């Protein structure tokens, strides 16, 4: 009997899962509903190499799926809903596709505050089309305002400065990259961007846009100042794409709620990547991780657990425990973070001189939970293994 597996989501989590399912379940038909008119591509490069015109669209495409492609159908539509019976999805064009198993890998989308919508020259950055649109508007050497001092905002500011554009960055808080790095590096990021010529407006509240003939002309702040702008790029965070699951009975709470096996609250439905909030046994808490490496590893892990259920090969079934990892690249500085620092009660800056750049360790109840480093990949990776080993020892105890 052939099984039908639907994978929803055409980025890295979906790609890793499809590749693994094709290899492990030889008799399955796989329908990959991508929601994309492009093949799967590298998102991290969009704000970095691609924005700096150091590579082109063709360089971003992930390798094709291998195997018997007769069993794989790729559909560029989106899933509009999941049937409450939990046995079929309905696509945007009305087509209904029944399944034995479903993987939800629909990721996240950029958050765009209402006051920033509907004006020319104002862009979020989440997709290849966003990145192409931003790149196209760079030709006239615009004056750029970046809204948001998170990862996307800071990387965009760095890329725009690397291209020699005039850049102002507005952030509500008094520090940059507060959420990803938990404030561990003090003023390091402020200095880095200032030294590279970004005008920083810290504690700045955007009130509205100044508009001229439908195009952005400036950004007005709550304190009454206006910053001139011909291009505004927005890094205001993201939200998981779970709207299509409403009413389906799949439990959603800031992401699709999953157990340690990446199984959702409904039988035969799994989730992976930015959309999934799963119980991470390494930390014993629910977390939703929005990193490239996680999307890859989770897509594969979910596929293996799905294959175990379909084929009865129990050796494939495994809890997914992970120490999250991500990097950022700004002005050639390699900034890396491992672990989960939320809820830490103590940060320690390493002054031993062992690391070639700044290094921070995060602790909770005396246990190492995360580490961040700049230009220190080896020691950061060593700490990642240490976090993993300590967690394993704790579980065994």
């Amino acid at each position, binding site marked *: 009997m052939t099984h039908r597996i639907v994978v929803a989501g055409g980025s890295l989590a979906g790609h890793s899962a499809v590749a693994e399912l094709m290899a492990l379940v030889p008799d399955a038909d796989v329908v990959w509903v991508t929601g994309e008119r492009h093949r799967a591509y590298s*998102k991290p490069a969009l704000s970095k190499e691609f924005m700096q015109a150091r590579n082109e669209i063709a*360089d971003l495409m992930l*390798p094709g799926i291998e195997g018997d492609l007769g069993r794989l159908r790729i559909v560029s539509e989106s899933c509009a809903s999941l049937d409450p019976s939990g046995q079929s999805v309905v696509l945007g064009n009305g087509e209904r596709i029944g399944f034995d198993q479903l993987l939800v890998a629909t990721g996240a989308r950029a958050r765009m505050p209402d006051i920033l919508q509907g004006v020319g020259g104002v862009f979020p950055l989440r997709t290849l089309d966003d990145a192409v649109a931003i790149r196209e508007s760079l030709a006239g050497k615009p004056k750029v305002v970046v809204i948001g001092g998170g990862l996307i905002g800071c990387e965009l500011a760095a890329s725009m400065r690397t291209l020699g554009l005039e850049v102002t960055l507005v952030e509500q808080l008094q520090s940059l990259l507060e959420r990803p790095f938990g404030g561990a590096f003090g003023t390091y990021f402020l200095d880095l961007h200032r030294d590279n010529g970004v005008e920083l407006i810290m504690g700045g509240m955007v009130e509205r846009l100044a508009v001229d003939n439908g195009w952005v002309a400036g950004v007005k702040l709550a304190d009454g100042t206006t910053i001139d702008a011909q291009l505004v790029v927005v890094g205001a965070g993201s939200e998981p794409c779970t709207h299509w699951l409403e009413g389906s009975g799949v439990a959603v709470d800031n992401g699709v709620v999953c157990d340690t096996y990446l199984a959702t609250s409904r039988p035969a439905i799994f989730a992976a990547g930015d959309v999934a909030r799963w119980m991470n046994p390494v930390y014993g808490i629910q977390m939703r991780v929005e990193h*490239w*490496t996680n999307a890859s590893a989770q897509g594969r892990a979910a596929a293996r657990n799905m294959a175990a259920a379909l084929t009865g090969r129990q050796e494939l079934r495994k809890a997914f425990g992970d120490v999250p*990892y991500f990097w950022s690249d700004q002005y050639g500085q390699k900034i*890396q973070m491992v672990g989960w620092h939320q809820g830490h009660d103590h940060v320690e800056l390493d002054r031993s001189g062992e690391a070639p750049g700044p290094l921070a360790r995060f602790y909770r109840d005396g246990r190492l939970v995360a580490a961040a480093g700049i230009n220190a*990949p080896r020691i950061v990776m060593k700490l990642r*293994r240490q976090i993993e080993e300590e967690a394993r020892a704790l579980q065994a105890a």
Partner: protein
Amino acid sequence: MKIIVDRQRCDGNGVCMGIAPEVFDVDDDLYLHVAENIPEDPELRARVRQSITSCPILALKLVED
């Protein structure tokens, strides 16, 4: 199984090392070292393939024996 690194592209972000540290090692000069001989272990080889797909700059290529 042999891995080819495009040195023009690789920027040492260590994603490959995060997935298969047995095979990939980025040093403090951000230079990527790749193990000469990759053990036959199918689980490891699957992760090596996954590293190649996950390299955000698509700097890795695989040559199967």
